[in-house]
């Protein structure tokens, strides 16, 4: 199972909640929109990532679980 983060750029309006809740992975660009350091989420941050996705007022942050080669 691999877990990745994805942003729906159409839904996102740059509230910036995700960068507050998941600063290890997400920072904001000069216009306030999220930039992912990497789409893969390190395991220890999984709960934080889910919380950030739930907190997004536009539901634009997607935690996607895909069956993968590893685990």
């Amino acid at each position, binding site marked *: 199972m691999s877990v990745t983060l994805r942003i*729906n*750029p*159409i839904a*996102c*309006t*740059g509230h910036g909640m995700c960068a507050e809740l998941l600063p290890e992975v997400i920072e904001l*660009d000069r*216009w306030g*929109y999220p*930039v992912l350091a990497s789409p893969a989420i390190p395991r220890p941050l999984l709960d934080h990532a889910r919380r950030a996705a739930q907190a997004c007022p536009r539901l634009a942050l997607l935690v996607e679980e895909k069956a993968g080669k590893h685990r």
Partner: protein
Amino acid sequence: MPVSAVTGGTTRRVSRLLAGLGYPPGLSGHERAYGPLRLPLRRPGRLVDVVEASGLTGRGGAGYPAGRKMRAVASGPGRKAVVANGAEGEPASGKDRLLLTRLPHLVLDGIALAAQAVGADEAYLCVHGTEGALLGHLDRAVAEREAAGLDRDSVPIQVTGIPGRYVSSEQSSIVQYLNGGPGKPTFSPPRPHERGVHGKPTLVHNVETLAHLALIARRGDHWFRGAGLPSAPGTMLVTVSGAVRRPGVYEIEMGTTAGEVIALAGGPAARLQALLTGGYFGSWLPAETAWPTPLTHAGLRAAGGSLGAGIVVAWPAGACPLAETARVVRYLAEESAGQCGPCRFGLPALADALAALAFSGARDGAIDAIAALLPLIERRGACRHPDGVTQLVRSMLTAFPVDAYWHQWEGACDGVRHPPLLPLPGDEERDWDWG
């Protein structure tokens, strides 16, 4: 390197799609030019095999294998839909318009064939809704076929006008519009081949791709491979403009070099410094690099360019490519659907930075300001619109480093006063500052 690439001399003319131009318009001329089409297909699935074996790739810009796309749609659940994309968004392209105005039945043949091959019960031919005359012309062509009983066993082809914006010709935009939406790109998945028009697996092909399909169905995959390269078979339509003696749409074998294409278009009308290949989502290439490059997706990619929808603009030494890139990027920024933040804010910022380099000049950091914006825009939109713009700008910085340096340290060059060469819709209403 073949001698013709050096001399720009002899080029073998090829006329497959455009063979019908010498015949009277209408269905009878069409059948005399290409031969009758036998419909319905006895084994619709067989056509998908033939298209796959032909090696035909999409002629709309992406160059995806046409047969593989058809197979993906055909293998989906339930009834399917087919969309012919004739909404030529690229202002420097004229091939789709030529096909639709002069050879509409070749495109309509292709739609009817594709619809049968994938099992569609809906078929659309989409052009920009602002093109009233073209819409009427296509409606009459469809009516002519119906009167002749040609597509009796096929699905009716609906000629549809879609919004005239640049991004509305993107395939997800067209699908969204046909589903009752505003015609803007959508977040994927689902992609149209999975779930498109009315929820059906939907085949979206460029009109030129469908015209090739109409000939492949008549003559077979072996015939198709008789032109072009083994790795890039067949012919393609290219639109040549800029500093050439006979600008226009030409049919070439895949793999013809850029130099041969310029020769075909009458040769350079001035000393050339560069070619813009692939249109406004394409790339600048220095003329010396571009000249011997074969026009295939792989060939141009290896040279740092892109083929796109077969656009070649010959760039004269006297015109400033930085100024025109700034102008085109301003247009593309305005054409953003405005849905995604990085595109909505990034493209105007990029256009400003390009204008500062091109026109204001003598500003320390002007090049760095452009380079810093590119990663903030790339791969951050729902569609490829922002990525196409950054590719054009990156190629400008790569192809013209000396010009960029000159503009940054010395100011605008004399070339900024050259009249614009790259066509933009509504250009006359734009207030361009040409210094």
